[in-house]
């Protein structure tokens, strides 16, 4: 069942036409998964993924497959964040067919920070500003051609951005 989920989200933009969803219903998918199927179709907010407490659980909830490190994923992040409340992180990649990019901070109370959906025609480069509670690995996931790639960098935080 979970395999189906993965394939689904990986290629969701291709099968968004109503027929695909209907077919799934016909296959007798349980309501929970139906919701998720629609979720993908409508870019529904990945509520569960945002509640996860570890990189692995986020990746599982979001993509359901493992990520392989890639030197084609370039992350631009400071060595030492000036303040954990505002840490500028940018990513770019030379990978083709990128469909989404996600930012994870391992040591934050909720690990997933943001997921960006990249339609065809949009460049696989994103910059944003994130909060970091303390020194942590920052992971960028790039979903491209149905596969998942990652890059990791440690960012030191001396003034935390999550209270205190």
């Amino acid at each position, binding site marked *: 069942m979970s395999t189906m989920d993965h394939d689904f989200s990986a290629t969701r933009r291709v099968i968004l036409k109503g027929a695909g969803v209907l077919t799934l219903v016909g296959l007798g998918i349980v309501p929970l998964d139906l919701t998720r199927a629609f979720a993908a179709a409508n870019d529904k907010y990945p509520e569960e993924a945002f509640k996860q407490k570890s990189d692995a659980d986020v990746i599982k909830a979001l993509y359901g497959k493992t990520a392989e490190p890639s030197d084609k994923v370039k992350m631009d992040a400071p060595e030492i964040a000036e303040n954990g409340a505002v840490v500028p992180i940018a990513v770019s990649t030379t990978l083709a067919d990128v469909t989404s990019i996600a930012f994870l901070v391992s040591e934050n109370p909720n690990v997933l920070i*943001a997921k960006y959906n990249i339609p065809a025609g949009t460049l696989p480069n994103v910059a*944003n500003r994130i909060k970091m509670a303390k020194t942590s690995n920052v992971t960028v996931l790039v979903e491209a051609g149905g596969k998942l790639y990652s890059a990791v960098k440690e960012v030191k935080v001396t003034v935390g951005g999550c209270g205190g």
Partner: protein
Amino acid sequence: MASTIRVRATSSGETTEVQALIQHPMDSGFVKDSKGELIPPHFIQQLTFEHDGKTVFAADWGGGVSKDPYVKFAFKGGKKGDELKISWVDNKGATDTTTAKIQ
């Protein structure tokens, strides 16, 4: 009231670079106020950019995105004078929408 969304979109001919800054507290739900009580979560969950009736960028955000969030991306196409529609919805159901002209 002024929009909560500020956008700068510039076309270089082939691509359009978009930067947006949004006024929002982005409370994660993990921070305590001065009285030691947790500030309830209040953050933007989804942000979309549309050009010519098509979504060119869509963000799913958690409470870990900085206060007054900023994002930058670029897409192929887009001419000077084209409109870009930006909208967000937060976890309390509040929304805002604006349109910006590509420069």
